[in-house]
């Protein structure tokens, strides 16, 4: 089962694929903050802040693009 997981692609419905974006943001934030923070004890807090920023940015971008698509002639 596990071996198959790394051989054949997963088949997910399109809507589900959007759920894979937050984990990617979290992983990017962890690595970025790991090399940026001065004190490792600050890592969890700073990572969460960055994840929130990234997701908020993506949502804002999506809303902006949706507005352009909907309301621009």
């Amino acid at each position, binding site marked *: 089962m596990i071996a198959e*997981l*790394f*051989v*054949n*692609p*997963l*088949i*997910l419905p*399109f809507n589900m*694929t959007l759920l*894979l974006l937050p*984990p*990617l943001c979290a*992983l*990017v934030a*962890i*690595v*970025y903050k*790991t*090399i940026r923070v*001065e*004190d*490792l*004890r600050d*890592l969890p807090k700073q990572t969460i802040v960055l994840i929130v920023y990234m997701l908020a940015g993506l949502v804002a971008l999506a809303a902006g693009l949706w507005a352009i698509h909907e309301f621009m002639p």
Partner: protein
Amino acid sequence: MRSKDNKSSTNYIRALVALVLAWIVPGAGHAFVGRPWRGVIIFITIGVTFWAGIALGGVMTVDHQEQKWWFAAEMLTGVHGLVGWQRETQQLKKLAPTIRKEIEQEEDAINAVIRERRRDLAQDNAEMANLKVSLQTSASAQDRQMLQEEIDRRQSALDNTKAEIIRQHRKLYNLRNAHTVKLLAKQNLALVAPMATLARAYAGVAGLLNLMCVFDAMMLALIGTVVGKPREDAA
């Protein structure tokens, strides 16, 4: 002065070692420059990111033939990328005999055309060399003009033959690729949108993150951070 120079060259060597280590094993560069906990976090996170991509897209997420830019990004993960590449190559090797069987006739026909064109090319090259010698030894202006025209005509034919050989090679490459893709799809190994993008984004982003870590480890080694240990790792 000499001690300063020695320190500087030591730092360059340390930077080079950090660069190689950080590329081969994500996080090893940071461990090398005296930041072991950061190294562990980087190792785990980049490994998880890359293998999450492979879990989503399967063995063909690393595709060195069709997705060259993603492949380059994936190779930045060092050992993870290399293992992914090896798995992909093994998978393609398993499919090779079936593909060969399917396209045997077409492949042989194209190879025959290529061989024929190569023979023409060699013959034309030899004739061209003779014409050039004749042009140099020719005395009359009229002969030289005629020879020059003949050389130009032959050169144009030579260019066409070369272009034809390139076309046939491309045809062969496309034929193999088309059958590979068809067979991969038949065996449920081919990536399709949107999973293809997502899987490659995970694996590729892992590589780009490691590039950032490689650069950071190299800079830390260059400025000699190992001498003054950072406070969180020293604690």
